[in-house]
């Protein structure tokens, strides 16, 4: 956010109040962003389970996101009928760690789901996530297949390329929504990261998102607002994304990245692929909508 834009917003806002015209909308996150550069943390290590707690530490730990009695949604990427080594889905241990941390923090309910691209049950099983979820013996955990009745139409008021989307009710109503994408190659958006992972809460015909994908993902990000984004870059898919299938296309990075700023988190993850944040259209579009920071210089990047 540029200072000039900020001032402009403030002026419009004041003008809006004085003239009592409700159409002027001040965007709260613009104000918030001026205060402090977003914090992006990353951690490296072989123990993926333990890595998650470590990467959250500088952000205040899980307790700054999950409070006692809250409903939590954890949204991994498990869209493809691929196994963990093929790097098309979020690593099971990363998901497991987040679920257990949330449960320990006193969550009332932790839901884990994705709307898959391949057959639902095959994706849940082959991603390895179903297996680790089954090891968590806690009935507060709901590892479920989306219920088709719960996709509700939502007006995207601030959307530039899309005005209405069907979004999963539980994702919208969660007290804490945690986005857990896997970082990987994608032939149209170049990479799929946090913003792209949000497509897993969409109903309807998602294929139509692909025309002007970057802007539409940014529009979606105005309503699907994760409190926390944890990017799994334990191994990344460099080619033949988003589903891969050949382990020769996979690079082991042993890295997990986290931030409360979804744009900053994506922007930093981009650097793992030797790309610049401004090469990813969704990052740019989301930044322009004021959803977060994309300039690496204006982030506080901490290795945990």
């Amino acid at each position, binding site marked *: 956010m540029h200072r000039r834009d900020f001032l402009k917003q403030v002026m419009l806002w004041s003008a809006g109040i004085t003239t009592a015209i409700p159409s002027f909308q001040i965007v709260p996150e613009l104000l918030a962003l001026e205060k402090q550069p977003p914090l992006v943390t990353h951690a490296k290590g072989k123990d993926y389970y333990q890595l998650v707690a470590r990467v959250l530490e500088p952000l205040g730990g899980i307790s700054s996101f999950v409070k006692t009695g809250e409903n939590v949604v954890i949204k991994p990427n498990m869209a493809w009928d691929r196994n963990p080594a093929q790097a098309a889905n979020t690593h099971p241990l990363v998901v497991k760690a987040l679920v257990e941390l949330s449960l320990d923090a006193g969550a009332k309910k932790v839901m884990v789901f994705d709307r898959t691209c391949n057959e639902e049950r*095959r994706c849940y*099983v082959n991603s390895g996530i179903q297996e680790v979820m089954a090891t968590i013996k806690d009935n507060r955990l709901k590892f479920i297949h989306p219920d088709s009745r719960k996709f509700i139409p939502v007006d995207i008021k601030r959307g530039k390329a899309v005005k209405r989307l069907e979004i999963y009710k539980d994702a919208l109503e969660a007290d804490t929504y945690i986005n857990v994408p896997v970082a990987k190659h994608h032939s149209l958006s170049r990479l799929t990261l946090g913003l792209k992972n949000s497509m897993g809460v969409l109903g309807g015909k998602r294929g139509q998102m692909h025309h002007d994908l970057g802007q539409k993902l940014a529009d979606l990000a105005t309503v699907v607002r994760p409190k926390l984004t944890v990017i799994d870059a334990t191994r990344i898919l460099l080619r*033949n994304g988003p589903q891969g299938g050949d382990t020769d296309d996979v690079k082991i990075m042993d890295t997990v990245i986290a931030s409360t700023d979804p744009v900053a988190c994506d922007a930093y993850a981009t650097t793992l692929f030797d790309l610049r944040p401004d090469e990813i259209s969704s990052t740019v579009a989301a930044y322009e909508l004021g959803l977060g920071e994309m300039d690496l210089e204006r982030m506080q990047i901490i290795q945990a």
Partner: protein
Amino acid sequence: MVFMQKKNFKLRYWRRSSQILFFILFIFLFLKTDYSGTNELTYAVNILFRIDPFLAASASIATRTFIWLMWPALIFIGLTFFLGRFFCGWICPMGALLDSCHKFIPHGREGRISRLHTLKYYLLGFLLIAAFWGLPAAGYFDPFSILVRGLAVSVYPALNVAATSFFTFTYEEMPAWINMLTEPVYSFLKITILPFRQNYFELAFISLFLLLAVFILEKLERRFFCRNICPVGAFYAVISRFSLLRGKGGSKCGKCKNCMSVCRMGAIDEERNISPVDCNLCLDCVDICPASKISFGYKQNEIIKPSFAVNRRKFIGTLALGTVLPFFLDARTMAKRPDPYLIRPPGALPENEFLGRCIRCGECMKICIGNGLQPTFLAAGLEGMFSPRLNARTGYCEYNCTLCGQVCPTGALSELSMKQKHATKIGNVFFDKNRCLPYAKGIPCIVCEEHCPTPEKAIQFREAQVLNSKGEKVSVKQPFVVDERCVGCGICETKCPLPGQSAVRVTSAGESRNPENALPTLSTMY
């Protein structure tokens, strides 16, 4: 040796219990015909077809090999030599359904030997000889094919429509306290009897009508289908002529004819002779006879000499028809050039052998987790109706799934290992550049490539500068297919975001099973 004669001990309860038990087993296996969390099936869900001697004979005759997959049929052939048509009365799920519906279908006369009861022998003869000469039609008359197909592509999906509509209504319109009651019920039904997802099928209505017809015929005569049409029954009847266990009517009785009128198979004549070729050992007559004159026992061969009452001239005529008709099949255009959109499931044998073995049971369509396999209408000819084909616009073949080959009871689809499956080409895709967005409109779209499942993608791009509909010069990625990698799974066609027809379509070109369908390459002259 005579037994089963005690009056106070209702024999029919034993028979009924057996019918219920086997029907429950049948439904259980039907529900288990699904992906269960592993790619390997845990139950022999196709067993009902593999114990069917008629289908085993038909498929074996058609392919001129003994199909080992169907060896369990031999057990039932053997048992029939001892017990007669016990299968029809005690085990057959179709028979159990007909018996249980008997009370609800207003019916005509009972007892009495039907004038049509020889029809099934002619039909059996026709079906077997026609199968030999290349006209496989067993699946149209086999009761299990009719039953399972009807359930799989029609009744079961419709049941889910009904359940989903009801629970969607309660979810959206009803107050919370009602949902407290209905939602747990819905969840319970979903994990027990309802399918995992709503599937859609072509020929859902025709399949339903064929199944319903069996029940409607019940109006004419009790067990009309079993008495007059069923080729499995006919097959067992032929063996039952030699069976050891037989019923014997009383010689001195009050002539109440209760036995005759209660007989569901019309097996008892005016002289209370029980025909072993028609009797399905339901034992109702034993229970009903006021004088306890009827008994079943071994070594009663001398009692009557059963006759099929088949007219030799007519039978030979039927066989001649079954021999001649197949020649007409090869006079059709499809003999010269098969339908290019007739895409057979992975592991399908070459077309003639495939159709010879395929019994149209619908098991592969039931288990297809992509809802890609559909019953064929006329694309494979009249004789190919209900055989499976891939309709890639409504569903696709899941890359890492080999379930259809595992479930096929006759080996019309061979069981493939994962490695073989990945190397099996069921077709090849073609792009319609007049519709495909990056070609036709200059609009970026990569959905087909994104979903292409081969590790090295069969769909690739070329970057191109094109004019969009506003006349602006834009740079887009235009997809093309690498034939050597494409397996024809059709996920690109399913997921193509265009409304109506897809811009990328699978055809059978290049399918592994048919070398004549090979695609041209740069190195080979065409």
